């Protein structure tokens, strides 16, 4: 374990530097051959909102990703639910990018009601500022995101405006440290 662990500060900086690359390399895959069904899905979203607001990336068969600014996420989410038929959130996860000073929150959306969409997972992603991380809550659109959002608040400190319970969930009641999934939180001995 210790042999390939980059030592101390150096290591964390190296990680920070590489966090930038993640985004760029995904966008390159945009040019890959997109299957018809996914392409159709992507076109529908882009034609509704336009290139300036949403950016839709094809990742793999069955996996597409929408990048939205936080102020548009409610509209896009309602469109995705009402028109496309993605009806529940499978997971909500936050990723910390200290280099960009941003936190990315991803909603993985699935569908039970539309048979064709069963193999599709749509990732709805938005980014918020790291120092003042606030996002509108999606629980009025996807009820299933309620506990996931509460967990994201706890683990990354993203405040979901409109969520009834931005409070402790998994961590002990007397937790007084920074949210543990932020990158500057180091676990002991590492």
């Amino acid at each position, binding site marked *: 374990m210790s042999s390939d662990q980059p030592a101390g500060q150096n290591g964390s900086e190296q990680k920070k530097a590489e966090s930038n690359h993640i985004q760029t390399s995904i966008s390159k895959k945009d040019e890959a051959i997109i299957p018809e069904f996914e392409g159709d899905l992507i076109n529908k979203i882009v034609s509704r909102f336009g290139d300036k607001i949403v950016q839709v990336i094809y990742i793999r068969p069955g996996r597409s990703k929408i990048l939205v600014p936080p102020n548009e996420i409610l509209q896009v989410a309602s469109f995705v639910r009402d028109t496309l038929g993605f009806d529940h959130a499978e997971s909500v996860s936050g990723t910390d990018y200290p280099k960009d000073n941003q936190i990315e929150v991803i909603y993985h959306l699935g569908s039970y009601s539309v048979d064709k969409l069963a193999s599709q997972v749509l990732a709805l992603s938005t980014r918020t500022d790291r120092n003042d991380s606030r996002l509108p809550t999606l629980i009025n659109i996807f009820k299933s995101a309620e506990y996931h959002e509460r967990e994201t608040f706890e683990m990354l400190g993203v405040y979901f405006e409109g969520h009834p319970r931005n409070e402790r969930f998994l*961590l002990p009641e007397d937790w007084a*440290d920074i949210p543990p999934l932020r990158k500057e939180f180091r*676990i*002991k*001995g*590492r």
Partner: protein
Amino acid sequence: MIKDLVNPSNFNLLVGKLGDVLTRALDQPLGYAINWGRIWSLWPVHLETACCSVEFGAASGPRYDVERFGIIEAFGSLRQCDLIVVQGTVTRKMAPRLRMVYDQMPDPKYVIAMGACAITGGLYIDSYNVLPGIDGIIPVDVYVPGCPPRPETLIQGTMLLQEKIKRSKIR
């Protein structure tokens, strides 16, 4: 006079004192018998702290049947329990509860630390929410290593505990 001595407020005290007197009087002749009684009716608390509870469940299942060795199936209230098997990782949220459960059990009480996590923190030694072993919270009688320990190991642990009870003075 006996009426003044025995009233509801000091009744428990009186019974406790009587118990002490009896214990001292019976220690020599009947100590062995009392310990023998304790050995074959160890009541474990039904407190699961982590994933070792699966193997504890298997140990009380039909193949390993820990009841043969005097460990009665985990059931009922804390007030009649005298054994606590700490089944795995103790997190910072669980630790105060574990101590509370331990405090509520009547004496004499025994503790078995089951699994690597309960002994040292095990696999989760570097996690931010896990205690490095439970001996900081409650005194441990027997350590049962493994991740998770096989039911046979748990049975051997309980047999070691019985050996320990057999040799100890009655309390």
